[in-house]
């Protein structure tokens, strides 16, 4: 009886002190922000039409601001990579298998951005977070442009127009996303929602 009790207490599935690199709270935040980012982008795009320059600008800005908040909240190396993994699995379901072929390149972009944040002073510095997110957005857009070329390679003019819209989206990230993200983080820190541990 005592033996079986000891065995059940030491079984790995019930061990109370089991530690993971990714705690449940961080994983929950990553999942929720991925969902929020996708849903808000979809809503804004549906409101203003797919290639409307204004909504494109706003959509990318909001997605970047949410990403800044996510990285500032979780503060772990690999947050962007995990965000990409979850986002690409969801994209596989929403947009079909074509997008999932971009996973390796997006993963490399996210890891490079994570490395940049770590090199610039870590996740506690808002400047480093902004630099990392800006780099991730830039690399992500370059990859998207490559995919656009593959998809519409018969008509280079169409790829060029898509390129201009991608540049416009990146401007939205820089002009709206990063400043708004920094301001959101400041307000959330002030409110105690992003904790200074």
């Amino acid at each position, binding site marked *: 009886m005592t033996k079986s009790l000891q065995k059940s207490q030491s079984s790995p*599935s*019930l061990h109370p002190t*089991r530690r*993971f*690199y*990714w705690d*449940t*709270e961080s*994983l*929950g*935040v*990553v*999942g*929720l*922000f*991925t*969902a*929020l980012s996708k*849903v808000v982008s979809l809503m804004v795009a549906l*409101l*203003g*039409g*797919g*290639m*409307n320059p204004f909504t494109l600008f*706003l959509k990318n800005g909001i997605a970047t*601001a*949410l990403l800044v*908040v996510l990285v500032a*909240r979780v503060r772990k190396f690999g947050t962007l990579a*995990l965000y990409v*993994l*979850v986002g690409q*699995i*969801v994209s*596989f*379901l*929403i*947009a*079909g*298998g*074509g997008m999932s*072929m971009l996973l390796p390149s997006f993963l490399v972009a996210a890891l490079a951005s994570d490395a940049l944040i770590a090199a610039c002073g870590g996740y506690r510095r808002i400047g480093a977070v902004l630099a990392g997110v800006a780099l991730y957005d830039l690399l992500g857009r370059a990859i998207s442009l490559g995919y656009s070329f*593959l*998809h*519409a*390679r*018969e*008509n280079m*003019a*169409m790829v060029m*127009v898509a390129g*201009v819209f991608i540049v416009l989206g990146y401007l939205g990230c820089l002009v*709206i996303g990063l400043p*708004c993200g920094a301001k*959101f983080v400041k*307000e*959330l820190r002030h*409110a105690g*929602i992003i904790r200074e541990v």
Partner: protein
Amino acid sequence: MPALSARFDPDSTAGNRDVLDIRTRLLISLVVTSVTLYLSSNATLAAMSALTFIYLLQTRRYVVIVVAYLLMLLMTLLSLGIIYGSSRLFMMLLPGEGMSRMMSGVLDNFHTPFLRSIPSMNVLLAIGLNFSVQGFVGTMKSVRLPRFLFLPLLVFCRFVPEFVDVVRQLRDAVRMRGFSVGFGSAILHPFQTIRLTVIPLIVRTLRMADNLSIAAEMKRVGYAKKPTQLRTLRFRGLDFAVLAVTVLVSAALCFWEARIPKPKRMARKPVRAEMRASGTLAPTEIDHADTHGRDARQQVRPHGRDARPAHPENEGASK
């Protein structure tokens, strides 16, 4: 009177409505979208579109399919309008021969990218029309995703239905404060709109993350190495058959695509090679032909008594 639990029948759950396993549908989506990216001729793309449409009809949701196609047509026309308008704008803002030459062909082959989207939409609709959260969670459990992927995806699935409620509450809260949020206010007062909508949304989301993580910890979600499953998913004979047909048809279409000659590329190369070999192309013109082959073909003419015609077809005409 039967208890509520007596109504529960594992075979009638949403995940079991579909004749195919959801993993089969995901694999079909992966194969079709990858192959579609390779295909570029109208015939192969039309064949792929037709085959995937037959696959989609198996869902028997005809009204949804018609609505989806109408929406796609609308979005295609909208995109074409915006692309055409943008090209005209670029030509006005950046006048020049290069830009006008590039943009004058903006609507050439416009149908190919859109034709390429149809098979993707068909396979995606086939997944979407049979999708259920329960079935998706069951699939994630059955493929034994690691905890760091399983938990965020689970949270994702649970959040999306909640989001509608959150938006409704936010709209009511904004109205109570005397503001109105819409497309007009987003254009006129973008920062105020963001402050009124996005900040409360982030705060609510972060609180929801806290609650969900506490609930997941209490339930020990993601801790068990082999989670208990109510209904184990397994491939059946039909799944294997459909996957085999998909792979065979895709391979056949790729083979067909490889056999189709590319007329434009075939026509340009012999002309330049012939002109270089005959010496009818001056060095400066050779450089010009390398960069702007089409113009050089039109401008360069054979000169001198022994000059050979620039194109093999003209040889017969001169004799």
